[in-house]
């Protein structure tokens, strides 16, 4: 046995630390779930929820940052074809917010790509998404989303926090606050980013911030290059055995302190050093794709470590397997003010296959039923053209599409409509708060009861709004 193995087995043998805590597992739980065990659904056999039995254990949010065009993806509007190039009727646009088309002529733009019908429901999906389309019976498309913010930064903030005021907790942080992580040695809320297919809009760490919730609930961004988690690698020249010895030395000295002081923070500190040391192997293991068989890599279409959206989708599955509660993938490539044809072609190429692969892969592993997948941007795009040759669309908030898949979702559903020009949500208008309420509902959380007191008020992810979107639930 090598010195290193000796060391590890010694670490495993030692139990004084764990005895000094209730257990690392409890540490990983959210603030509320652990306190509410009595009301959990575990006794009834479902997935443990905070307020009612949960349909899913985790959420994977595939955020198509920049704002994908609903008119080129899931919301086919023949009227736009008919009126292509004509003035946009003022009845739609009068008094409405406008982004980059401020002070420009507003001309109707027809869909750039063909749509076809798919699945038993015959839902119309762009021909640019053949892989996603092949899963039409798995997904529920919401065509009647609307949001309140017409620019990227605040629209992401609104999509994540339900508020336009910076400093509120993101939905991942709320989820972690309510349910904690199912992983002992990985963060419970993980974020990955990728780009490609047009100008990459910046994305801020405030999108996965804990806001006024305790900072342990903030998302941790995994890096595609260098240490996957900052500072997870040993300093150069230091062996794992040496690092382990260091951690043990620190913990021995901290235990010494704890023996003489009534300060519960010391015991926590000791546990966190143990956990940190475990992460020093679990994180590299997480990032090591070498054991993924070729057919899986082919399914996603990625090379290990290429930092692509495809790699991130595969990583999302690996995170899900390891118990991460909330996984967010940002693909920064959907802001198509100009050169839409070229850039959309490119980005759909990058996004279609891996998205479908993730759904299929989870399904094959029996994990789709316990996962909620959400695909969508922070807003949609105008039925009006923008830019040189009219080859672009501006930001649009009155109507856009997203899709959901996984546990509790009624596959093959098309929910809500926009008007004939794809301008405004018409039937079943669906607010961002409704999406949040639905996500929490599937996690076993009543969105009206997940609260945190700040500035004298019980804050909620859904503020004073939100209705579960019942029409997409199975």
């Amino acid at each position, binding site marked *: 046995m090598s010195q290193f193995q000796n060391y590890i087995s010694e670490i495993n043998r030692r139990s004084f630390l764990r005895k000094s805590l209730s257990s690392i597992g409890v540490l990983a739980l959210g603030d509320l779930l652990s306190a509410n065990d009595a009301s959990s659904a575990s006794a009834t056999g479902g997935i443990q929820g905070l307020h009612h039995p949960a349909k899913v254990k985790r959420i994977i949010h595939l955020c198509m940052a920049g704002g994908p065009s609903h008119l080129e993806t899931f919301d086919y509007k023949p009227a736009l074809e008919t009126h292509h190039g004509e003035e946009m009727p003022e009845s739609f646009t009068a008094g409405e917010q406008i982004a980059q088309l401020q002070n420009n002529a507003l001309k109707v733009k027809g869909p750039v790509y063909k749509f076809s019908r798919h699945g038993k429901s015959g839902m119309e999906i762009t021909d640019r998404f053949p892989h996603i389309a092949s899963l039409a019976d798995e997904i529920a498309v919401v065509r009647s989303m609307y949001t309140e913010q017409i620019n990227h*930064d605040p629209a992401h903030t609104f999509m994540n926090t339900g508020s336009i005021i910076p400093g509120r907790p993101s939905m991942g942080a709320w989820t972690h606050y309510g349910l904690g*992580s199912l992983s002992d040695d990985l963060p419970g809320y993980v974020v990955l980013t990728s780009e490609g297919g047009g100008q990459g809009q910046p994305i801020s760490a405030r999108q996965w911030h804990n806001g006024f919730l305790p900072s342990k609930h903030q998302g941790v961004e995994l890096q595609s290059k260098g240490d996957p988690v900052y500072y997870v690698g040993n300093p150069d*020249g230091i*062996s794992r055995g040496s690092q382990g010895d260091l951690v043990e030395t620190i913990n021995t000295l901290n235990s010494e302190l704890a023996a003489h002081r*009534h300060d519960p923070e010391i015991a926590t*500190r000791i546990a966190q050093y143990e956990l940190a040391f475990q992460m*020093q192997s679990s994180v590299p293991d997480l990032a090591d794709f070498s054991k993924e068989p070729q057919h899986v890599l082919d399914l996603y279409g990625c090379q290990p470590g290429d930092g692509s959206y495809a790699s991130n989708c595969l990583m999302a599955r690996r995170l899900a397997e390891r118990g991460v509660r909330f996984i967010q993938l940002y693909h920064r490539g959907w802001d198509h003010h100009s050169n839409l044809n070229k850039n959309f072609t490119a980005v759909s190429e990058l996004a279609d296959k891996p998205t479908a692969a993730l759904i299929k892969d989870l399904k094959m592993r029996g994990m789709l039923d316990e996962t909620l997948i959400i695909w969508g941007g922070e807003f949609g795009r105008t039925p009006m053209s923008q830019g040189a040759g009219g080859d672009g669309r501006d930001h649009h908030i009155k109507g856009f599409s997203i899709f959901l898949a996984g546990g509790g979702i009624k596959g093959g559903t098309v929910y809500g409509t926009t008007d004939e020009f794809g301008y405004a949500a018409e039937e079943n208008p669906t607010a961002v708060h409704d999406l949040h309420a639905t996500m929490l509902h599937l996690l076993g959380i009543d969105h009206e009861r997940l609260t945190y007191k700040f500035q004298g008020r019980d804050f909620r992810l859904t503020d004073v709004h939100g209705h579960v979107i019942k029409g997409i639930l199975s």
Partner: protein
Amino acid sequence: MHSSIRKTTPTLVALASLALLPWYSPVFSAEGTAPNESLNAIDFNRDIRPILSNNCYFCHGPDKEKREADLRLDVREDAIEAFAFVPGNADDSELVFRVFSDDPKELMPSPKSNKSLTEKEKNLLKRWIAEGAIYQSHWAYNPIERPESEGIDAIVSSRLQQNDLDFSPQASKETLIRRLYLDLIGLPPSPAEVEAFLNDDSIDAYDQLVDRLLASNHYGERMAIPWLDAVRYADTVGYHGDQERDATPYRDYVIKAFNENKPYDQFTIEQIAGDLLPNATLEQRVAASYNRLNQLSREGGIQDKEYVKKYQSERVRTTATTWLGSTMACAECHDHKFDPFTTKDFYSFAAFFADILEKGAYTDVGSYQDSIEKYLTDEYEHEGWFGPELTVPNYVFHQDPVSAREEIKNLESQLAKGSPEAETEYKQWVKTQRNLAKRKTPTYVLFDYTDEYFENASAKRIDISSYPYPFADTAALEFEARIVGGGGRGSLGIELTYEVDGESFKKAYHLGDNFEKELDKKSDAPAVQASPLLYKGVWHSISLAIDVLDIPPEATLKSLLPLKGNAASFRNFKLRTLAGGTQQGRLSDEGQNALGKVLAKRARKEDQALLKTEFFTHLSEVFSKERATIDELKETLYGNRYTPLTVSATPREVKVLPRGNWMDESGETVLPASPTFLPNPIASTEQNRLDRLDLANWIVDADNPLTARAFVNRVWALYFGTPLSIAPEDLGLQGEYPPYPELLDWLAAEFVESGWDVKHLVKQIVTSRTYRQSSDVSDALYEIDPYNRLLARQSPVRLPAEIIRDNALAISGLLNPKIGGFSSRPYQPEGHYRNLNFPKRAYAHDKDANQYRRGLYTHWQRTFLHPMMTTFDANGRDECVIKRDLSNTPLQALTLLNDPSQVEAAKALAERLMEEASDAARIESAYERALARKPTAKEAATLQGFLDRERERFRNEENDPDAFLSIGIYDPDPENPPIELAALASLSRAVLNLHETITRY
């Protein structure tokens, strides 16, 4: 993961309190509540209001829009009139009937509200009504009353006695000195300082130490940290592209204000309205940057008006939270649910700031409310990317400008004396000048070029092949350039094409810090970093000496290509010959004149002397090193930084926005006015519009019950870890009735009466017996008062992120104690900014002494703050933050274990330990430096064992000492044996990672 054992959430605290305590305050708080105390008399503020506010006011409170059944419970007369209760007769009271009802249709609070009362709460309400339903006005809105018992200790002592408790013993002197250092200046005491204190038996040793630390210039740095959180100070604009804009002079103003003990009322007035003061000084105008530290946006496609409104609301939130501890923000869309703030109050407050000259969208679509040219009146003012900016010469916030000037003078007069080498050079130079004059060589050859107005266009190549003079006669390439933008440092460059023997070569020169990657793409020539910092938005005169250009002397110059980076302008390209100068520079007009006379042999003695002196001081090559030192010193005095300028212009119209909707124009127009329910309200009239100065004066009015309470409450938290009222952001009805209201009031009264003297306040606290108690706690006391709200001891306090860094740097001896100046850039993981765009950013860490500056100077990138800062609970400062939630996570462990800043500090500490004679002495020294105490035998043995094992690992090559010791830019003395040094660095890592090292006890 990311969990702490300390169950700090409201739910858990509530459960715990219920289980353990016979009575608990229904106001949940993050840190927990005060323990039970005897409940002889019902106190409305303490016992009843929290129940009503938390459970009833949402529907039966101040907000008339949401009021149900036309019943309000926050006003006694109205509640009685609505038959809510009959004072003195609980059984006939509807309220009692409702809260005890079993029928869900009758039960209050309604089950739909997800609120419910405990039996305890129900009975309290019943008893309160039976005893007459006495109301009190909300404690924080009542006038500050100086309690009868004087001083912190008297107040605490009497309360402890009531609870059969006593003060804990005083902490040891070792603990006290470390506590005072970390609390007052944020740095640890050196072993020598500890020793001196231990040996000082004089009665006033402690007070003297306090005075010394309060007089330290590091005190201002410590005090600045929470203040900068509150006023949302950062180095970038936050929204979208999160571009840089300089506001560092404002940060230095804050440090200086605390160090000079500027009275808090003056401090307040200068920040809110410094620009409006008569004959405002430069410093007061810098203070007024406060108004413009909010997040700004230049995202394409944003709507100007929307962002004007965003900025407007944010200023109300920040000002109300920072100065008043009020949640006025809640009144943006509707009347406040709990406090008497109306929506009109919110917008009237916002109207005070409507004069600030600004755009909503800092893009083409944005516009100022008035022509900016009208307002930029002096040489210190210009327009940058993010609105008006103020130029601030460094001497304004220099710690000791008099000495610096003196030093420059001395060094220059040293140079003026010359040296034998300089004399030789001078003679040679005069000869050269004579030759150049004979050949009628001009000083400059100009090349016509300006793209001043085409910043975004691609640059044109400029032909310089007509330059007729040989290399030997050429001094420098000069031009002027400006980087688009304002705020922050940028980069640009030029590419030079030249020929040697008919073969063409290219070389590129990058100027500024190349943070923005675009520049790399602009030239395929090898790039040389050629000059210091370039501030965006202003013109810079750039001179590249021939030696810097570093091209072969036989080369012929062909052309120049400006490299615009993200967008820059260039003008006035010229080549300077050696006529009238050297590569180092050019003679002054007087010097030119004297040279003319010398060459014409008409020079008098004075001319000779003048020329020689100027040559030695400014031009000679032999003194170039000394001159670089002088230039650096001059930069610290005469270099410029910039800060957002607050200009008072024609005020924008402010309307009440129905439901906060910026597109809804239907609301009434409001003028500046203070909230009406607070004392001495002020309001504009059509004839007399109030301004920010009026607001500031109202805030610091001695009768304002909130200002002093809000500040002393937060200052208390600096020295006990927890404020007196647990939620410093909310002293309103939903905040916490403090367990020690009389202590809060005594401090507030003392603070105001002392003339808002901050150091006096701090001194009152840190010299108290209450403060000096041991932070150790018995199990019994812990059981009674786990959150130390009764103050029968001190509390351990984990250091703030910035100070964890400072502490490691100070312990290791690496700390650069420089105060103020540009922000610094410590090591940061590569790619941390990869999600930024417009422009893309690359991060270059400081490679000089700036690497070791204190944490508060760390470049504060709002959207991607340095991960060490985030991990230790600092935040991006998008908005006002007046309380950091402290976590305890594995990421913190990873950071302290592996962050190169920490590893490098361990290496430097190891080098200091090498000086000790034995391992025992080394371990002892490490403890003394880090913890101000000696290790116990057990601790020493543990570390000795680890040290021995590490020696073996470095010796047997399991560890690689060279790789380990090459982390960081600090090079230890090569005389040190690497294995020994590396093993001691391991030891140092252990010490720097201790919980005790990052905690002040």
